[in-house]
C-alpha cells in the first residue's frame, strides 16, 4: 500500500486527536462525577433518570405534607386530651354528688360553681386556635370562632363539617382536622332527652330558651312526641297555640291562644321553656325528643338537674348526666384514637416515601454516576496510548530519503 505524505501526517494526527478527545471526555467525567451531561449521551438512561427525578420531587412534596399532617394532628390531640380531662373531672364531681346523697346548699353551690368553670374551659377548648390563629374545630370556616352562646345561653356551632385532607403518599390521604360538630355537638344522648329549636323560615327574632325538665313523669309519659309552639297567624294580638305534632290543628289543653309575654316561662308536658325577643305571626318553635345532644347542653342539664328541688328530676339529672358524660368521653377517646391512627399512617407513609426516594436516588446514581475505578483505568490506558502515538510519530517522521540526500 502506498502511503502519501499527507496521509502519513494527517492519519497519525487524526489518531492522536481521537485519543485526546476520548481522554478529554473521560477527564470531564472524572471531574464532574457524571457519566451523562446531556440527554443524547444516553437517551435510555436519561429517560429513566427523568422519570425517577420526577417521582422524587413528588414524594418530597408528600414529605412536606407529612410534617404538616403531624403538626396539625398533634395540636388537635393536645386539645382533645384537655377536653377529656375536663370531662373526667366533671364526671368525678357528678359521681361525688350522687354518692353523698344529701348536700348542703353551700356544697351544692360550690360544686355547681366548679362545673360551670369547667364548662367555660371546655368552650375555650372547643374554640382552640393554632399558631396561625385558625380555629381548629371550625371545619372550613377557620377564621370564625365556631362555638358561641346565643341569647338563651345555648352554645351554637357556627362552623361546618369540612375536613381538610392532605396527600402523604401516592394513594394515601389523611384528614388533618375534625369538625367540632362531631366532637362536641352530635353526641348520642340518653333516652328522654329533648331539645328546643327555632324553625327555619321564622320571620321574627324570637328565640326559645334551652328548656329544662321540671316534671319527669309527665315528660316521660309523652316524650316521644314533638310539640310545636305556633304563633297565631290571624289573631290580632300576639298569641300562640301549642300542638302535638301527631295531632295538628288541635291545641293542647290550656294552650289555645296563649298571650305572648317575652321571657315568661311556661311548662309544656314537663318541660319549662320561655320565648324572648319578638316573634312574628306564623313563627314556630319546637320542643322535641333529642337523639343527640351537645356536650354543653349535657352539662347545662346536669346543672339544672342538680339545682332542682324535685328529687326525681334531680336524680334523673345526675344519672342521665353520667351516661351522657360517658358518651361524650367515649367520643373524645374515639377521636383521639383516630388521630393516633392517622399519625401512624402518616409516619408509615413517611418512611415508605423515604425508602422510595432512597432507592430512586440510588438507581439514578447507577445510571448517572461515574465509576471512578473504571474511568481512572480508562484514563491511564488512553494516556499511555497517546504517549506511544506521539513518540512513534516523532521517530517515524524522520525516515525520509531526503534526509539521506546530502
Amino acid at each position, binding site marked *: 500500500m*502506498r*502511503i502519501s505524505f499527507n496521509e502519513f501526517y494527517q492519519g497519525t494526527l487524526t489518531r492522536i486527536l481521537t485519543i485526546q478527545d476520548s481522554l478529554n471526555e473521560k477527564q470531564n467525567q472524572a471531574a464532574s462525577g457524571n457519566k451523562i451531561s*446531556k440527554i443524547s449521551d444516553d437517551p435510555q438512561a436519561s429517560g429513566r433518570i427523568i422519570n425517577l427525578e420526577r417521582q422524587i420531587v413528588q414524594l418530597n*412534596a408528600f414529605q412536606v405534607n407529612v410534617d404538616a399532617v403531624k403538626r396539625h394532628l398533634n395540636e388537635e390531640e393536645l386539645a382533645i386530651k384537655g377536653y377529656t380531662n375536663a370531662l373526667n373531672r366533671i364526671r368525678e364531681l357528678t359521681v361525688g354528688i350522687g354518692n353523698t346523697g344529701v348536700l348542703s346548699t353551700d356544697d351544692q353551690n360550690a360544686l355547681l360553681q366548679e362545673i360551670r368553670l369547667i364548662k367555660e374551659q371546655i368552650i375555650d377548648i372547643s374554640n382552640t386556635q393554632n399558631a396561625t390563629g*385558625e380555629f381548629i374545630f371550625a371545619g372550613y370556616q377557620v*377564621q370564625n370562632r365556631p362555638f358561641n352562646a346565643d341569647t338563651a345561653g345555648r352554645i351554637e356551632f357556627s362552623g*361546618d363539617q369540612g375536613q381538610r385532607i*392532605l396527600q402523604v403518599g401516592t394513594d394515601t390521604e389523611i384528614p388533618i382536622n375534625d369538625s367540632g360538630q362531631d366532637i362536641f355537638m352530635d353526641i348520642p344522648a340518653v333516652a328522654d332527652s329533648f331539645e328546643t329549636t327555632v324553625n327555619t323560615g321564622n320571620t321574627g327574632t324570637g328565640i326559645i330558651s334551652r328548656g329544662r325538665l321540671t316534671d319527669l313523669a309527665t315528660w316521660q309519659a309523652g316524650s316521644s312526641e314533638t310539640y310545636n309552639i305556633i304563633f297565631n297567624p290571624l289573631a290580632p294580638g300576639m298569641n300562640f297555640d301549642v300542638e302535638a305534632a301527631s295531632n295538628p290543628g288541635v291545641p293542647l289543653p290550656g294552650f289555645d291562644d296563649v298571650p305572648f309575654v317575652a321571657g315568661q316561662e311556661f311548662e309544656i308536658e314537663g318541660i319549662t321553656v320561655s320565648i324572648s325577643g319578638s316573634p312574628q305571626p306564623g313563627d314556630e318553635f319546637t320542643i322535641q325528643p333529642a337523639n343527640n345532644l351537645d356536650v354543653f347542653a349535657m352539662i347545662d342539664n346536669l346543672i339544672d338537674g342538680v339545682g332542682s328541688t324535685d328529687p326525681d328530676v334531680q336524680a334523673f339529672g345526675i344519672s342521665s348526666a353520667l351516661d351522657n358524660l360517658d358518651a361524650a368521653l367515649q367520643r373524645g377517646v374515639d377521636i383521639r384514637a383516630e388521630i393516633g391512627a392517622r399519625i401512624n399512617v402518616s409516619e408509615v407513609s413517611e418512611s415508605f416515601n423515604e425508602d422510595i426516594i432512597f432507592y430512586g436516588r440510588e438507581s439514578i446514581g447507577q445510571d448517572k454516576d461515574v465509576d471512578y475505578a473504571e474511568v481512572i483505568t480508562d484514563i491511564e490506558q488512553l494516556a499511555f496510548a497517546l504517549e506511544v502515538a506521539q513518540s512513534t510519530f516523532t521517530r517515524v517522521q524522520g525516515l525520509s530519503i531526503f534526509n539521506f540526500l546530502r
Partner: protein
Amino acid sequence: MTDIFNIAATGLLNFQRAISTTSHNISNSTTEGYSKQQVVLGTKDPDFGGGFFLGTGVRINDIDRVVDDIINGQIQTNISLIRENQQFFNETTKVDSLLSDSATSVSATMDEFFSALQVANADPSNVTSRETLLRQTQAMVDRFHAVDRQLNTEISITNSSLNSFVSEINAISESILSINQVITSQVNPSPDSLDHRDRLIKDLAEIVSIRTLEQDNGSVSVTLSNGVSLVSGMSVNRIEAVTSESDSRILDFRLVNASGQSQLLDSSVVTGGQMGGLIRFRDEIIVPAINDLGRLALSIGDTFNQQHRLGMDLGDRIGQDYFNDVNDPNLVANRIFADSDNDGAATFDVEITTVADLTANEYVLTALPSAGYTLENVQTGSVVSFGSFPFTYDGFSITQTGGTMAAGDSYIINPTNNATNAFSAQLNDVNSIALGMPIRTAADGNNAGTATISTGEVLDTTNASFSIPQQLNPPYRVEFLDESNYRILNDASGAVIQAGPVAYNSAIVNEVFPIPAINSIPAQTAGVGTLTANGVGDLIINGIPIIAAAADGVSPAADSAASAIAIANAINNTTTTHGVTARAVTNEVNLGTYTPGTLVAGEFQINGVNIIDASGTQTGLLSSINASLGATGVSAALDNGEIVLTAVDGRNIQLSSAAVVGTANFTNFNIGIINSEVNRAAVVVSDDPGFGLGNMTIAGGNPASVGLVAGVTNQIDPGYRMSISGVPARDDVFTVGYNNGGVSDNRNGAALAGIQSSNIFNGGASTLNGLYSSMVISIGTKAYQAELNEQTANALQANLESRREEVSGVNLDEEAADLLRYEQIYQANARVLQTADQMLSYLFNALG
C-alpha cells in the same frame, strides 16, 4: 550527428519538465485536494532514412492527474452525510441542554409550581404560602417564555445560516461554471483546474447533497440530490431563500434560472450537507419543540383554568381564570393560515375544545372539488373527511367566521401556534386563588341513622345553582320520611322542591335533583309507530326533528312506516350530543298453540323465508325454523309449550302465508295470520343522567305514534354531585349549601394538585411532565442517532480519504526516487550531448 544533439536535447528538455512536475508534486504535497501529477513519456516519431527508421528521442505525451473518480464520488456523497449529521448533532445538542438542564428546564419550574401548590393546600388560609404559589406561577410562566424565546432565536439563527449557505451555493455554482468554460476550451485541460473543480464540488457537497455528471466535452453538470439542476452545460440556476407562506418564521427555497424565472423547491429537495442538517434540525427539532411547548402551555393553562373555575376563593367567590383563556379572540384566528393560491376568502377561528386530546401536530384543511372538506394531519398523514363547519377533531374545533371556501382552497392549521407566547398568569391577588369548593354538605346534628353524605363534587359553576354570588340557588335539604324514602326541600325557604316520597335505594350516588318526574328515565320504551320516512315534525327530541328512513336494510318492510331500527338509528345519528341514545327491541311473536301437521313450501314464511316441515311434530318444526332462519337474525324457542320467535338486533318479524287462516293448508297454529303481517319492534329511548344538563324534551306532531310521551323530563342538573350512603333513620336531614367562610377548605386545591399526576394528556397517554419529558427524550434520542450516524460516516470518510491518498496523494520518498532517477537521466542526456560534441570535435580535428 545533429540527430544525436536533437535526441539529447529532447531528453534534457523533457526530463527537466519531469523534474519540474516532481517538484510541483513535492511542493503541493500538503495542498488540499491536490492529485499527484505524473509525466507520461513517449518516443518521438522516428525518421525514415536509409531504409530504416531511426529514433528521434523522447517526448511528453501528457501530464496526468492520478485520480480514482469512483472514490472521489464516494467522498462527495459521504461528506454530505457527515456534514448533515454533524450540523444536526451540534445544533440539537444546544437545544438538548437547554431543555434538560434543570437551570433552564420548564419541567423544574413546573415541579416547583406544583410543590408550592401542595404547601398552599396544607394551609389554605395562609397568605404567605399563597404568595409563594403566585410567585412560582410567574416563575413557571417566565421559564416557558424564556425557553420559547430561545427556541425562536434558534430559528432566526438557522435562517441566517441558511441564507449564507444559499449564497455559498450560488458562488460555488458560478465558480464551477467558469472552470467548466475554461476546461471545455482546452484540448488538454490542466490537471490543476480539474483538481480545483473537484475541490469546489466537494465544498458544495459539504453544504448540500448533490450529484455530478461529467459530460463528453469535459464539463460537469451539478444537480441537487433529486435532479434539480444547479450547473448544467453553460448555465447556472441560483437558489433563493424566501419566507415560507405557511409559516412566516421559517425559510423556503426557490430555484431561479438564468432568465429570472423561479419555482418553489419542495422541502424534500434540499437535503444533506450542513444545510440539510440545519433544515432537519429546524423541522425535526425546533419547530416540533416550539409546538410541543405550546401544547404543554395550553394543557397546563386550560386544565388548570377549568378546575380553578370550579373552586371558591378566600372571598367566597367562584374561581376565575388562573391563566390566560386559551380561546382568547386574539389567539383563535391566528391558528389558521390561508394558502396564498386560495381563490376563496373564507376566514376561520380555531378553538381548543379538549386540551387533553390535543396533538403538537399541524393540519391541512382542504375544500374538496364537489362538496365537503378534508383535514390532514401533516405529521402522521392521517386524513379525515367532513361535511360542514364547525368541525371538531383532535381536541380543537374549526368554525367558519366569514367568506366562502372555493374548491381546492387549503389552510394550514397549527392549534398550538403562539400558545407559549400567550401563556400568562391572570391572577395577581392571593385572595383570588380558589383552593376551596363552593359547596359544603352537612348531616344534621340530630340524625339518628348511620347514613353519611359525601363532600360532593362541583362540575359546572356556570350552572344556575351558582347564579347568585355567595349563595347556592337553591340550597337543598334532603329529609328522610322513613329509612327508604325522602323528600327534597329548599333549605333556605323551607319550600318543597320535590314532595316525593322518593325511594332511597340504599345509596344516593351522584344524584341529580330532583328525580325526573315525567318521562321514565333512563329508559322509555316506544311502541309500534308510524314515524314515516318523510314525517318531518312527527317526533322532535331536544329540539331536533327525527327523520327515519323507511327501510333499515334488514327488516322486512310491510308499509311506509319506519322500522324500529331506522328510528333508533335516526335518533342515535342526530341526538347523541345531547346524551340521548336509542335502541330497537324486537317484540316477541308467539305462534300459539301447535296443532300437529306438515308444512310444504309456500304455505308459511317468516321474514320471507319458506318454512318446510315434514316431521309433523312441534320439535321438528322448531328445528326447521331455526335451520331456515339462521341468516335472517330471527330465532325460535319453546316457551310454555309454544313456539316463540325473537330477533337479536331489534328487527321486525314478518309472518306471511299464502293460505287463509283456518284452511286445510294452514292449521298448525291458532294465530290469525292475515296474508302478511309485520310485528313491529319497539324503540327504547334513554337519556344519560350524567350527561351535562340532562334534560330530554320529547315533542313533535305525533310522538305518541312511536309510543313516546311528549314533555320534558323534569330533570335538573345543579352543576354539582353528592352522595348519601348508609342507613338513614326517619327525620334524618342532609343539606348542601354555599361554602361561605370556608377559608380552610382545600378540596379544589387538591384537585388542582391532582392535575400534576393525572394521566389525561396526549389522548390519555401522558401526564403534564410526561409531555415534557417525552419531548426532551425524543430530542436527545435524535441527537444521539445523529452522533452515531456521524461517527459511522466519519469512519467511512477516513477510509475513503486514505484510499484517495493512496491513489492520488504525494509520497515524498517516491518523489525523491523520481527526482534522483530523472536527475540521472538528465545527467546521462548531458553525457550524450558531450559525447556528440566530442564526436564532432574528433571530426573537426581530423579535418583540421
